[in-house]
């Protein structure tokens, strides 16, 4: 018997034509072939050329990751596929909006922790805050975990965006 292959997490950036249905095509490819999506973000990054950038975080064996990249590359509106995890150093960031409700000590404590995490309060009432936090996924997770006992109401997260380090681009 062969050894089971290790499962790794990869962050893949895909440059696509910003045309109707492109997101459905990408998502359909993952669901149709049984691949995993841990997070997916998309937005236009070049207005004149109408290009969007999709960042998808997925996990699988090396064979599955190679297949995912090959299938993405085969979609007609896809310009480029880059496996940031495989290609070298890169940075990943996520943004979250975190709503916390409480009064008294709990309210003060949430502000204090937000300060440590460099989260900003972007909305406040006498009994609530909305914090904006940016950072690695681990940092956001840690912040959210700390807010639970302090009155966490809800969280909205962007999913990961990523870019390679250094001077060169796509």
């Amino acid at each position, binding site marked *: *018997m*062969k050894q089971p292959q290790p499962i790794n997490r990869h962050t893949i950036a895909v440059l696509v*034509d910003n045309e*109707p*249905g492109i997101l*459905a*095509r990408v998502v*359909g490819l993952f669901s*149709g072939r049984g691949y995993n999506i841990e997070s997916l973000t998309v937005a236009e990054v070049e207005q004149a050329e109408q290009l969007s950038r999709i960042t998808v975080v997925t996990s699988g064996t090396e*064979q599955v990751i*190679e*297949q995912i990249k*090959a*299938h993405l*590359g*085969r*979609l*007609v*509106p*896809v*310009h480029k596929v880059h496996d940031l995890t495989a290609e070298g150093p890169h940075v990943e960031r996520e943004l979250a909006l975190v709503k916390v409700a409480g009064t008294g000590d709990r309210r003060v404590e949430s502000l204090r922790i937000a300060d440590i995490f460099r989260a900003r309060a972007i909305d406040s009432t006498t009994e609530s805050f909305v914090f904006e936090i940016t950072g690695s996924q681990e940092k956001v997770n840690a912040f959210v975990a700390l807010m639970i006992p302090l009155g966490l109401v809800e969280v909205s997260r962007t999913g990961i965006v990523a870019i390679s380090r250094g001077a060169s681009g796509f």
Partner: protein
Amino acid sequence: MSDTREMLTGAEIVLRALKDQGVEVIFGYPGGAVLPIYDALFQQNAIRHILVRHEQAAVHAAEGYARSTGKVGCVLVTSGPGATNAVTGLTDALMDSIPLVCLTGQVPTHLIGNDAFQECDTTGITRPCTKHNYLVKDVNNLARTVHEAFYVARTGRPGPVVIDLPKDVQFATGPYIPPATVAHKTYRPRTDADMSVIDRAIDMLLTAERPVIYGGGGIINSGDEASVLLTEFARLTNIPVTLTLMGLGAYPASDRQFLGMLGMHGTYEANLVMHGCDVMFNIGARFDDRVTGRLSAFSPTSKKIHLDIDPSSINKTVMVDLPVIGDVKTVLKALIGRWKERGAQLKAEPLKAWWGQIEEWRKRDSLRYGSNGLIIKPQHAVRRLWELSQGRETFITTEVGQHQMWAAQYFGFEKPRRWMTSGGLGTMGYGLPSAMGVQIAHPDALVVDISGEASVMMNIQEMSTLVQYRLPVKVFILNNQYMGMVRQWQELLHGGRYSESYSESLPDFVKLAEAFGARGFRALDMNDLDDVIRATLDHPGPVIADICVDQKENCFPMIPSGAAHNEMLLGPEDKADPVSTEEGMVLV
């Protein structure tokens, strides 16, 4: 700046673009959402429209046309049910890499999303079953989109492309742009391989003592030249050649180096060569599960070279040692050139020993079949059809089932594009409409649909199309009164419980042919067989030949699903291994 481009209606733009793309025939069926295009069709002569009787048949006909000519097949259907009926054909074309452009009507743009009459989300439904699809909302983009669709359909790994056309866009006026000025922004599949990769392939082949070439449908798709080059390379190296179901005809069946088809119903020698080889050269095939059998036992001792135009075919199910991304003919040409330049030669002694082994396996004569008095053996019927059609330009299509495998095993194909079958999807009902498309493309050729009595019922309405257009297609039914392939699996894997696989209440196919205005012949036993085949081939119009064959015949050799190449069943005397049977039961 004044616009000097020619202004046409959307419907006219479509037809002009088709004409400029070289389309001569379109297979279609009208309806409300495509009436403007039908109106424009009525007023021109450049493109011939073939009116089918069901939209699924339009797509299969276009597939037959495309497969037998190498051109892009073209389909026109209406919105809603027209589009959904086309879905099976589109999926079939995607699985077998057949280039098609399918135009679908759509409700006017302002009604899209309103559940309008005969509205469906065509681009949504067809996204997973096309290579690409488009919804054209602006007549200014129409000409470019049609040209781009043809480009996408035929380049790289070919496939079906859908263009969804709202009715208001067909009426609107816009500019016509000729094809030369349209280029796709990014889609440029790679066709040639680096010389360093070709050198590595040669290095690997030179280590071989037991080599094999395993060729597939990619050779056919690459064009006739690819088959010529394959033959040249095989002769140059004396490497044995086996082909997949989709690849039949890419190498001459009568050649000494040809081992026959491989896989689930492949020959003994082909499968044992695959199992025992030390270097495998896969050319344009995709390690389909019908070919590999149990993956963990597939060709365990070989180094594998895989030439494919589609990078996603590489390492999908079988890990290979050397991927070569490119077009078969381009790469083979470079490979042969380099091989000669390097004065390469395989090790003679081991290769001779390998051929000795192959000749031993050949002696098993795994395609032999018995006789049963006056009862017609289906294999014999195919063999006689093949023998009696010698000297004619013959094209064969099939439905799906045992008859399909017998056709593949007993009809020898010497040239590419003579064999049209539904391989990947396995679509019953493919053969008759596909034969229609082949006959349109080759009016003077002999076109035979080797068929089963169950499959043929799935698109039997197309007899009417054959008669209308005087298409002399021969429907050659191997009538065993069973869904034979289903019955075979039930016999081997489900304890002989023949659940719903008997073809009850069959029509009288001779009378049915006559009812459509065609001819019908029936062979009840061996005394009739040759006469019926001759009469069928000689009749100038469409024919249904009802060949009543042995009802209990099974298709051998067989690798039961879940088994390995060296666990083949050669005949009814072999029993499937219970362990692999249990694993195999859950597979298809």
